[in-house]
């Protein structure tokens, strides 16, 4: 790469990075000021004094403890259970030879192209019949089903890379297929499973549309729903709103910053040849 080209692209890079990070800077800056300060001195002015008071205020006024509890509960159950069900299905699709294999795989992958939209009304009616409408645990089933296509795709791809000899050896030792999966295949798939855990945690924490339709009581709201109503209630208390946004995205940011190298591999696994 010649020098001149390098310099131009480096400046372009810095410029674009500043543009991308700019909204984050605005949010953080606003959250550290008082309403009075923001309104009178403008959004770009340095804080008159830095205050952290907006965070406990937002936490309390926005009832974040309720929403955090709900979001964490659903993540803790949905993510492992969903990935486990996906692994169960991905194993035969990767390691058995049977006639319907390709058809079945295509059937599961079709889910990647189905928007949540098309099942919202029928699921509302179905969940109501099961007494699961407006109940945190009602979210579990649709959440799991919409996670499956991508997880099956990624896990099947990974399982196929595991040598057949290892699988056959375990079978000869008398393992059932389930035990082969549990004791041989899954332990060798830790990187893929870890990537899926992280991605699925983010997706579950962030999900909005289904929660909006299926949950109405405040006591079952998840964090995105809670943030939405919080913003509606305190629309013009800018520092409090921005502090609330930061509280709502905190777990996602922490997971992303600490674990991003694991989950980047997961995203690309679903999109490219190994």
């Amino acid at each position: 790469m010649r020098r001149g080209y390098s310099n131009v692209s480096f400046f372009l890079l810095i410029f674009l990075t500043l543009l991308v990070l700019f909204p984050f800077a605005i949010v953080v800056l606003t959250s550290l000021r008082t309403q009075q300060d923001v309104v009178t001195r403008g959004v770009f002015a340095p804080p008159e004094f830095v205050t952290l008071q907006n965070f406990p205020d937002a936490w309390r006024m926005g009832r974040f403890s309720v929403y955090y509890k709900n979001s964490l509960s659903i993540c803790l159950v949905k993510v492992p259970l969903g990935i486990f069900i996906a692994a169960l299905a991905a194993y035969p699709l990767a390691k058995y030879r049977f006639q319907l294999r390709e058809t079945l795989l295509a059937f599961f992958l079709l889910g990647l192209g189905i928007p949540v939209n098309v099942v919202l009304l029928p699921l509302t009616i179905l969940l109501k019949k099961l007494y699961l409408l407006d109940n945190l645990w009602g979210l579990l089933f649709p959440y799991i089903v919409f996670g499956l296509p991508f997880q099956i795709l990624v896990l099947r791809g990974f399982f196929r890379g595991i040598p057949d000899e290892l699988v056959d050896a375990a079978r000869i030792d008398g393992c059932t297929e389930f035990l082969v999966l549990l004791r041989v295949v899954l332990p060798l798939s830790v990187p893929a499973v870890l990537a899926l855990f992280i991605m699925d945690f983010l997706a579950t924490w962030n999900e909005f549309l289904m929660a909006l339709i299926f949950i109405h009581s405040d006591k079952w709201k998840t964090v995105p729903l809670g943030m939405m109503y919080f913003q509606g209630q305190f629309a013009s208390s800018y520092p409090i709103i921005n502090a609330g946004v930061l509280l709502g995205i905190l777990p996602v940011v922490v997971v992303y910053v600490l674990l991003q190298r694991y989950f980047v591999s997961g995203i690309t696994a679903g999109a490219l040849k190994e």
Partner: protein
Amino acid sequence: MQMRRFLSRYWLLFPALAFYGVFLVYPMIFSFIVSLYRWDGLSPAKVFIGLRNYVRFFSDPTSLLVLKNNLTWMAFMLSIPVALGLILAVILNEKIPGRTFFRAAFYSPTVLPLVAVGIIWSWIYNPTFGAVNSFFRIIGLPHLARNWLSDPGVALYSVILTGIWQGTGFPMLLFLAGLQTIPKELYEAADIDGATGLQKFFYITIPSLRETFVVVISLLMIGSLKVFDLIYVMTWGGPGNFTQVLSTWMYFNTFVYHKAGFGSAIAWITAATSLGVAYPYIRIMSRR
């Protein structure tokens, strides 16, 4: 006996199949049936009207505006994030200082909850105190300040800009992964032949990324047909219906206006289109 052997091997598929059947396939069929009726979604009174809901969608000016808005959204997502993502990927594929940081920065908006993204940008677009209008006032161009989210002429583009901010990291990451599969020898051979950087880009990089392009375009089209959260949080489809897209329009018809039949027809039009554009992606993925 044979049945037992079959079950002991294949039961692993059943939980996933059961979830699919009960929570995806059955609801989809149900939704298609509903789309053939005039129904409010609650009362027992249902009137069968065949495909009239579909005909209505394509003859109703508001629905056509919604379709146009969604296609505009898609056109922007397929051009700017794809182009930017590719440029960033090419730059960040070089060994430059701070490469990991830059990659993480460009991808970071993608991991946020869209509700948070919507709230953040509603603040940035705030007509009185927001960053955009404050910026225009500070640099002495106050006439450029406007109601970004309630001016019918710009509202859709304001939300699209937010979508671009949020959605550029994803194609970037896919292109980066694609770039890493291109053999270095190709570039070395081109160097020996005296190719310029641009020549290498157009004759090696772009053609080698053909499959990545198919995947990126397919996934971004699916994503564009799903867009809901940003619109819901930032504009609620307004002003008028100038930012209404297919999924919000489906939501309003089904759950707010109680036109469940019409809403389900919108959902099915969206789903059929989405499955159509997902097809090349699914084919590539199941071929491996």
